[in-house]
């Protein structure tokens, strides 16, 4: 799965999160930070993680979530890592 494909899917997920301003989803890059650039309430991050698991049909380990950074590239990396773990 290509990284851009994951970002596109991630943006689809973010559009369903009512507390994320849709205008801030126009120019998302790997360096975009959920907390500082998108003003996402920190309580929503765990909801985003759960929705991402459903969307990409993967399951994250609790340790993965504990160590997760707040940038888009962090969650892309995590999805790829979880997918690789699933496939192995």
């Amino acid at each position, binding site marked *: 799965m290509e990284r851009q494909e994951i970002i596109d899917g991630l943006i689809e997920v973010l559009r*369903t999160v*009512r*507390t994320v301003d849709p205008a801030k989803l126009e120019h998302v890059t790997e360096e975009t930070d959920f907390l500082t650039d998108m003003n996402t*309430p920190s*309580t*929503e*991050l*765990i*909801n985003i*993680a*759960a*929705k991402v*698991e*459903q969307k990409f049909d993967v*399951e994250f380990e*609790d340790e993965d*979530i504990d160590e997760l950074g707040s940038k888009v590239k962090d969650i892309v990396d995590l999805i790829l890592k979880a997918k690789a773990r699933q496939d192995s």
Partner: protein
Amino acid sequence: MQVQGRKVAVVGMGGAFPDCADINVFDQKIFSGQSLIREWPKAAERDKQIRSKVSGFINDNDLGIEPIYLVDGYDWPETFVDTSGRIPDVNMATADLGCVWAMMGSLNSIEMAGWTKEETQSEKTGVVIASGGGGNVIMRNAWHAFFELGKKSRHAGSHMVDRAMSYREAANVSCLIKNRGVCESIVSACATGLGNIGYAYRLIKFGLQDRAVAGGVEGTSLETFIGFDAMQVLSKGFSPAESSRPFDTKRNGFVCSFGAGIVALEEYEMAKARGANILAVIDEYFNNSDGDGDMFYPSYGGQRRLWKGLSAEAIIKPDVVKVHGTATPVGDILELISVVDTLGESGYHISAPKSQFGHMLGAAGSVEFITALLMLKNQQVPGCINSENLNPELENFQKKEGWEGSMKPAAAYRDLIPQETISKEINQIVCLNYGFGGTNSAMAISKDN
């Protein structure tokens, strides 16, 4: 302790009412004798799983609210959106349906009260709102994801606590209006609605707050409904409009309903000084417990002591008594007799609004309080619909040894219970509500003179 000379005015009201777009429609339907009770599709589709199929319900998508579903086919929304744009998404994200109604009712009450932003956000403005809490649809998502699908806890969502905690309505309203005073919930089963208004009244009367948004809520929930259905205490076997029958000989249970009633209270002299429209003045509030160890059965002694407490330091001579009157077999007539034995057999009327909208549980006391405010405004008493025949014979509890109350049957008091809306001079109304656990509450309100 009470502060001498300090009085409390009601200056705003709002809420969510079954089958009504707003409070004006509620006013019109109640005083024209209409029923707000309908067959509830969510109960009806369960067929033989549920005995009772009628309710005064409000749908997820009524009142300009749009439910957002995360997964197709799930019968519970992930969150709600206010299509009218009055409540920001960030506040909707922490709210269950009842909280949304509480926020809408609070905004309407504050708007009617005419409070400024500074007054609303003052340290002297409190929020006192609660729900009965018999069930909550929010837990369904957690139950399904965790127990049935075996998912990690995060799949229950990070808002399960704020949407399901006991004082969620007060918390959500406080975060929306940004008051800096008290934020609490008073929970007392079906006395919750009046209990919160009573507590808010005391906060102002005792000088702790100058203003308060107060009331009770019961969000639409099949979980709540089936709890009472399981107890076999819900009305069964009538058309929807005929299902709630306080005092009638054929009554066989209450109609489980949902809604919200919110009022704005303010210290009387402050309200008067700024030229507020005073809907009513609160004369007194009193509450007590039966003390007989019985969770469910109403107590004649408890209710007589309730009246005594209410009258201890206030002049109580009501033109209308707004009773709890649920349409359960024992409660109605025992309550009727406790009223008659206190006030006498004439000189007032009895109103049982549950005949028109059913029993809103945690919202009952506050929505019925709003009905009483509308009685003061309209100078009318809505009829007790479906109270067609009153028992010409004594009730079983009147035949028991040790019974100290009236030895007349319910039919002897027909004149007190109008079946259609009547017009009369109304200066004072007493509101009564009771709840499981033997809790009793009473409030007297008067027209501002």
